[in-house]
């Protein structure tokens, strides 16, 4: 492993001042430390931000927004009463991700920054434009679980986060601060599609640090009909083959507003705006959901031996919408986000 400096600032200001090109922020370490040890990331300076004050709170602001500090751990966020009640699919997505051990370490900011799990990005011997611009992409030859939407010839990697999928559906805003001061980034603009610059994976400018995440007041309006569904190879502790966050606002038996985002299909959580427009104002029926899912995947094209994933992603979206229409269960199922975990039980907002 490459030599580097390890710095532990005690304030945001100190942290920002410590940053220099080639530095990396260290949160829970669940992703960065692993990538450093296998040689996929080689920072010159590691800045441990886990002791920065003021970044660990969850609060409801006066306008009804929910603000979540960047250092809040996934495990704390998932069981927070406000989040469980008002943003149930965020809690469900968190609990479907990784393992208890990792959720105890992983932070909100770190999850937003999570790197792709593409084998070829992780293997320092493989060609990867994301790791080494211009090197090529070995995944093009062999990848069978890669992106369907928004990929480029240079990179077909997907974003592995569960958490970010409902965030995309709910219009989360990310508060950052950097050398040029503070700014906000809408989650849909935070993760970047590869295009010609696959090495640039987020909209963060050099030296910018995530301070918090904010869910707008209207995000809580979907709490009665909001589900996250994740299809994976084993019951737990596996990345999604495909996932979907579906949220409906129901009025008089009709959908008055809808949100749909897909996971594991692109380099970013994929918000399906056209599908949402088709759902708004309609009665919740499977045929409608199927049309909406078709619309969501209309632009999908295989990036390798993964045409099967288009059908799976479509069906995942349909099922997530059906589950959302049935209502959010009062308690998160024993198997969060599983197609087998959601059959019975009281509804949260019946």
């Amino acid at each position, binding site marked *: 492993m490459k030599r580097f400096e390890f710095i532990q600032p005690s304030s945001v200001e100190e942290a920002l001042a410590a940053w220099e090109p080639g530095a990396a922020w260290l949160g829970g370490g669940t992703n960065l430390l692993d990538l450093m040890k*296998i040689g996929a990331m080689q920072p010159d300076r590691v800045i*441990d931000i886990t002791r920065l004050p003021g970044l660990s709170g969850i609060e409801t602001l006066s306008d009804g927004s929910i603000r979540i500090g960047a250092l809040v751990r996934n495990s704390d966020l998932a069981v927070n009463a406000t989040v469980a009640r008002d943003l149930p699919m965020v809690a469900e997505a968190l609990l479907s991700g990784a393992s208890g051990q990792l959720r105890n370490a992983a932070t909100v900011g770190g999850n937003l920054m999570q790197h792709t799990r593409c084998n070829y990005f992780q*293997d320092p011997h493989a060609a990867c434009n994301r790791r080494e611009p211009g090197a090529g992409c070995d995944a093009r030859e062999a990848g069978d679980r890669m992106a369907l939407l928004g990929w480029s010839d240079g990179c077909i990697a997907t974003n592995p986060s569960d958490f970010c999928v409902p965030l995309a559906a709910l219009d989360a805003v990310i508060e950052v601060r950097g050398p040029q001061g503070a700014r906000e980034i809408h989650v849909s603009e935070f993760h970047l599609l590869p295009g010609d610059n696959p090495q640039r994976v987020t909209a963060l400018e050099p030296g910018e640090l995530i301070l918090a995440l904010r869910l707008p007041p209207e995000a809580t309006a979907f709490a009665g009909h909001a589900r996250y569904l994740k299809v994976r190879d084993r019951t737990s502790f596996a990345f999604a083959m495909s996932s979907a966050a579906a949220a409906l606002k129901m009025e008089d038996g009709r959908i008055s507003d809808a949100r749909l985002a897909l996971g594991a299909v692109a380099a970013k959580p994929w918000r399906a705006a056209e599908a949402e427009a088709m759902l708004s104002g309609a009665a919740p029926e499977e045929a409608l959901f199927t049309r909406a899912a078709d619309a969501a995947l209309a632009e999908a094209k295989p990036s390798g031996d993964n045409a099967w994933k288009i059908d799976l992603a479509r069906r995942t979206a349909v099922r997530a919408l059906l589950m959302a229409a049935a209502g959010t269960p009062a308690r998160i199922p024993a198997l969060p986000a599983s197609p087998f975990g959601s059959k019975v039980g009281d509804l949260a907002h019946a």
Partner: protein
Amino acid sequence: MSLDDPKGGIALTLNGEAVILGADPAARLSEVLRERAGARDVKVGCNAGDCGACTVLLDGEAVCACITAAGQVEGRVVETQRGLLEGPEGQRLAAAFQRHQAAQCGICTPGMMVSAAALLRRGGALNEAAVADALGGVLCRCTGYRKIIDAVLDASRHKALVAEGDRAPVSEGGVGARVERLDGWPKVAGLERFGDDVAPADALSLRVIRSPFHRAGFTFGDLDAYRAAAGLELVLTAKDVPGENCFGVIPGFEDQPVFAEGETRFKGEAVAAVVGTPEALAALPDFPVTWEERPANLTPRGAAEAAQLHGTRADNVMCRGRVARGDAAGAMPGAAHVVSGDFSTGFIEHAYIEPEAAVARRVGDRIEVQCCTQAPYMNRDGLARILGLAPGDVRILPTATGGGFGSKLDLTAQPYVALAAWRLNRPVRIAYTRTESIASSTKRHPSEIRMEIGADAEGRLVAETFDGVFNTGAYASWGPTVANRVPIHASGPYLTPNYRADSAGVHTNTAPSGAFRGFGVPQSAVAQEQLFDMLAEKLGMDRLAFRKLNCLRNGDPTVTGQVFETGMGIEACFEALEPHWAWALAGAEQFNATHDTVKRGVGVAGGWYGCGNTSMSNPSTIRAGVTPAGEVVLHQGAMDIGQGSNTVITQIFAEALGVSVSQVALVGPDTDVTPDAGKTSASRQTFITGNAARLAGAALRAQILRLGNVGEGAEIGFEDGTIVLSEGGEKRRVELPQDEGYALEVTESYDPPTLPLDENGQGVPYAVFGTTAQMAELEVDLELGTVKLLRIVAAHDVGRAINPLLVEGQIEGGVAQGLGLALMEEFLPGRTENLHDYLIPTIGDVPPIESIIIESGDEHGPFGAKGLGEHCLIPTAPAVLNAIAHASGARIHHLPATPATVRAAILAQRENGTE
């Protein structure tokens, strides 16, 4: 702070004590705890947060120490398994884990117990889902998790769960008793020491340089200059091997170099090794090697045209196997119903949680190697050949072995540390990284099988043909065993009058395929047992009734012409499933009547496995003695890799001697003092070493009775250096001879009676077959292709259960591995060399398992016992696949049955249905 000048130290509270550990703040907490604080109860399985073996509590919360930077724990509270034993949760957990036999090999036990302790501290009533969630990040490859769930639920209550009736474990008892694992306490108390836990503090570290290409030529730069510049003690390559640069396991098939010469044949093959201080290795500059990537062939399909991997093996065929009986080709056209199909399975990684690890030291002109292993004597002889020493000058001191399942039979890390320690005369250690372990260790053979089966109008088997091609990888390893064993077993435990089975092991540029629980039989069962379902469907017969009709019975010839007059228990296994089968079928029908998207299915499969090596001498020897002080000592050389031989062999020995197990002191498999009990493989230890232990116990008993001149029925006891013999209410004391060493000593061997096979595979390959039938209930989501297991019922004829508690442990663990084979596991060279891309079942993936033990006895087995280890997973995958087909109508031909594969099969079936 930086790596170059770590300032001060990291202050933390470790298990209640304030400590300051000098360490690089970016070092892994796991490494710092183990190497600086001596906390060897923190185990390392993957170094990537994937396996959870290193779980510690950080301020009371379970985290993976391997991905926690040491600097981040400054001022915080860290607790490990050892520390938790000081508190009530840890104590309750340790007692419950031991009571439920929740620890088999024990490598995952610290992670399991630490995670469970955090859960218990939260308080409140627990259910299975809560336990599964809390322990979901800790992988176990041995137990199948069910006994771990039971133990945690038990520990959450203040009164023990299982203390009732005859199912309660006991600490004393002979053959047939549910004796708690005799070596269990160190595992639950954080005291067990595995391959990487025993190196002295001054040991040098070794790292192996491996090929990054499937096939490559290579040239080294100036190695002397590199060694000097990098501050290394030694660089090793092929030219540094004093003996033969070659090892292997089957006579005539030793073909694997310690270091490749001229060309590497698989990605991950060793070309060199570097030895130095841990600091020097941490800062290692790029190794001076130039690679020339060459065209590689990864599948048997292209093998005939590909470059020869081994000069004498034409078309890259390593060897072939055949069994033929009757006239299969002639009889098949006469069958009323015929089914056929192609089936394939991929590479399966053993994924033991303990990576290969070893430490070697030179003692005069001998070399001593401590390592995890399944085969100490075979390792000894192989190392002697590499080092150019006599076998007696090599000593293998096995550590606890954190799972093996076949892959720790072969030499792995041992030659490297032995060569280095020999040259440097300093202790040298290595623990493989997870990536290195998966890349370089042996695998289950991928299979491509074509099979055809015909039955008459009543459903009786008429003929079977089987053609199996197995990818044996770059080197032979146990490939010849697979090629030989599969044709003998591919019929399953069914009467098959006309039979022809051909197999071939084919070389490719992949990691060598070797031994993995079942030696190819699980793969052939996937084909045969699925075709049985297809045949039963054609016949309109109940699938279990079809199997029962065709069961081998006492007096029937097997496909090799062997006839068992007693102990063929497969029919009893199917009979034991019948009530469960009827109930499950009715349940599925009822469920499916009201559900459209999710469908329930039930599947059944049988299996058999011959215990011991195929038509080969494979003896075990047991030594035992009584010390002048009156202590009975058993030299138990059968490696206990978690399966329980330390307990089972002792039970057999104690029963034969006529003492209680607690009176027997164990000496483990050290090649200097304990004779060769053969390999822990092929389900042979209970049967073969068990027989040697039975003979040793009986011989020692005879010596003692003779010494006291008492009759056969006398009771043996020991008091203050004398033997106390009780007979007919009278006690007689006999002084023990006060000799050096043992006062009384016996050595007994057992070699199972087998006969060679002729050119058609006819003969007596094994003295003993164990049989099994399993049933799987599951649900399939037809739209997403996902599968959820509901229940497994596993009936096993073990002849006689020496220890039913441990039998259940073997069954549950084997079933879990079978589920992995069926549903999720496939090693893809270069792409799945970690435990988040290579997925094995987690605690949430294994449903309740009901074990049914059948005891039909055995003519040769000790007290009638047969082996069990491999049998447990053979029927699991086909039972699951048959249940998927029952639920969805879709037949899975190519494993694993991932959601994508299941969904594709459902779509294909619908398309065919509308044609």
